[in-house]
């Protein structure tokens, strides 16, 4: 079976930290701060709705776009929340998490050699999926501006004539988010240069210092934005795999075309549970959010006092401290910390950017007891 794998897939950069991940997975009794999902179990009412739907015999396909009542629920929710008006008929598509949404939108818009801007460090899929779709990712390093995409930095990359930008905020791995004013400045540039905004706002509900602004709610942005979101992080529903894409009719229809041939529809059980989440789940979100916020203060304080300097992230559940004062690169740090103290973190090299080797991602989606113990172990580790 020589040369069976396609050139394109062969050329894809395998994740440089796969070996490290395997090392973590092979070890026992590790305190992991390397987890990219909430440590809460899905609230019971939502799980119960899934179970009940099975008892009632909801085991069939749904329409390609997803259950109408779920699309309607999302539409109403967005309208009440911030006046964003998406029609449940043709402007919302239920996807298998935001991951599928990213794949669908990039495949829907990219012609060979089209350029897509990806600010880094960022979640790992945007670049590779762009390449799979035949496009070219143009990475914008944001390290020097506190991991924030500034209008100036964005403008420097306009000569590539990009077709779209993937903006993830609050950001995995940095936790950085943007105020309405900052987003408006970015929006003005995108509109002026006809660059489509693809926004991954899956951590939007977990914004701590100011209200999360949906990009599409900015002046003139709605027709130029594909807004991706999901239930994974805010409702602790990662394993259910439900997300959604909202955008202009033509684009959603293009995405639906691919979706109907590749996925058909999202699991009906998951859609029924997600419906319960959007109808009744707000209370649990607020409680989780307060808990995350308290952990954030605790962890940032702890990291800084260990010399792992770290500015305060505004959202998600990640801290992205610098290792510059420690004098180790991120892979070395992560491996040694794992072997000596059994604490797992993710090396920054996983998330791109020139300086990934100087940073690690710490997830505070872990109980206080775990966080306390992990910080103690890190203290011992750094004292050695």
């Amino acid at each position, binding site marked *: 079976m020589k040369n069976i794998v396609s050139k394109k897939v062969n050329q894809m950069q395998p994740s440089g930290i796969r070996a490290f*991940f395997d090392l*973590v*997975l092979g*070890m026992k009794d*590790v305190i*992991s701060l*390397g*987890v*990219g*999902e909430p*440590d809460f179990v899905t609230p019971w009412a939502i799980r119960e709705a899934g179970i009940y739907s099975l008892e009632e015999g909801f085991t069939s396909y749904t329409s390609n776009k997803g259950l109408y009542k779920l699309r309607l629920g999302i539409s109403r929710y967005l309208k009440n929340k911030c006046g964003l008006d998406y029609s449940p008929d043709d402007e919302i598509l239920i996807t298998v998490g935001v991951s599928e949404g990213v794949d669908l939108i990039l495949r829907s818009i990219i012609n060979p050699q089209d350029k897509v801007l990806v600010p880094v460090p960022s*979640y*790992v899929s945007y670049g590779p999926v762009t390449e799979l779709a035949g496009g070219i990712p143009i990475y914008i390093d944001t390290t020097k501006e506190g991991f924030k995409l500034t209008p100036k930095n964005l403008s420097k990359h306009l000569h590539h004539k990009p077709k779209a930008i993937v903006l993830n905020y609050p950001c*995995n791995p940095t936790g950085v988010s943007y105020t309405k004013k900052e987003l408006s400045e970015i929006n003005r540039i995108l509109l002026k240069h006809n660059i489509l905004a693809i926004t991954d706002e899956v951590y939007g509900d977990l914004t701590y210092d100011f209200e999360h602004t949906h990009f599409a709610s900015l002046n003139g942005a709605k027709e130029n934005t594909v807004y991706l979101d999901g239930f994974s992080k805010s409702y602790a529903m990662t394993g259910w795999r439900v997300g959604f894409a909202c955008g202009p009719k033509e684009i959603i229809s293009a995405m639906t075309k691919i979706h109907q041939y590749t996925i058909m529809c999202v699991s009906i059980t998951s859609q029924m549970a997600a419906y319960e989440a959007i109808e009744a789940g707000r209370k649990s979100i607020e409680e989780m959010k*307060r808990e995350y916020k*308290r*952990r954030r*203060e*605790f962890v940032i*304080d*702890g990291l800084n006092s260990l010399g792992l300097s770290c500015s305060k992230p505004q959202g998600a559940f990640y801290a992205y401290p610098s290792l510059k004062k420690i004098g180790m690169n991120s892979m070395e740090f992560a491996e040694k910390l794992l072997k000596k103290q059994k604490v*797992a973190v*993710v090396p920054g090299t*996983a998330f791109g950017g020139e300086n990934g080797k100087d940073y690690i991602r710490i997830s505070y989606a872990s109980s*206080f007891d775990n966080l*306390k113990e992990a910080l103690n172990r890190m203290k011992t580790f750094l004292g050695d």
Partner: protein
Amino acid sequence: MNEIIEILEKDARTTPEEIAKMLKIKVPVAKEAIKKLEKEGVILKYKTVINKDLLKSEEPTVRALIEVSIVPQKDLGFDHIAERIYSFPEVSSCYLISGTYDLLVIVEGKNIQTVSKFVAEKLSCLENVRRTTTHFMLKKYKEDGVILKHKEENKRIAISY
């Protein structure tokens, strides 16, 4: 809700220093706030939730839920008679209830006999107690928001993006 209460309700062992870090306030401020809650009687006590079923060496205890119907007293309503009942150390909880009876009393004792004796000799013979119905508890599943079961292991994979 006061966030300090939310934190302490989850884990009463959280120190003022930790609370101060979590809420980004000064340690003396946290200490002062806790003291105030204690003084006002909002925080009454710090206790540990114990699953007594697992205490193999201990003598088992039985619990009974007792429905008590009462003749209210003029000017005093239910409060006076309730006090006479809840002051017995055998009574672990006592609630005034709407519906077909008045007080729900939870009683703990060594065995069925001791509880029955308490009901017959102490409770039922109180002047204003009209009738009692005793239900013995068979199994505790959840108490005060705590599920009485071994902690479930973490089901997440140890590392992910």
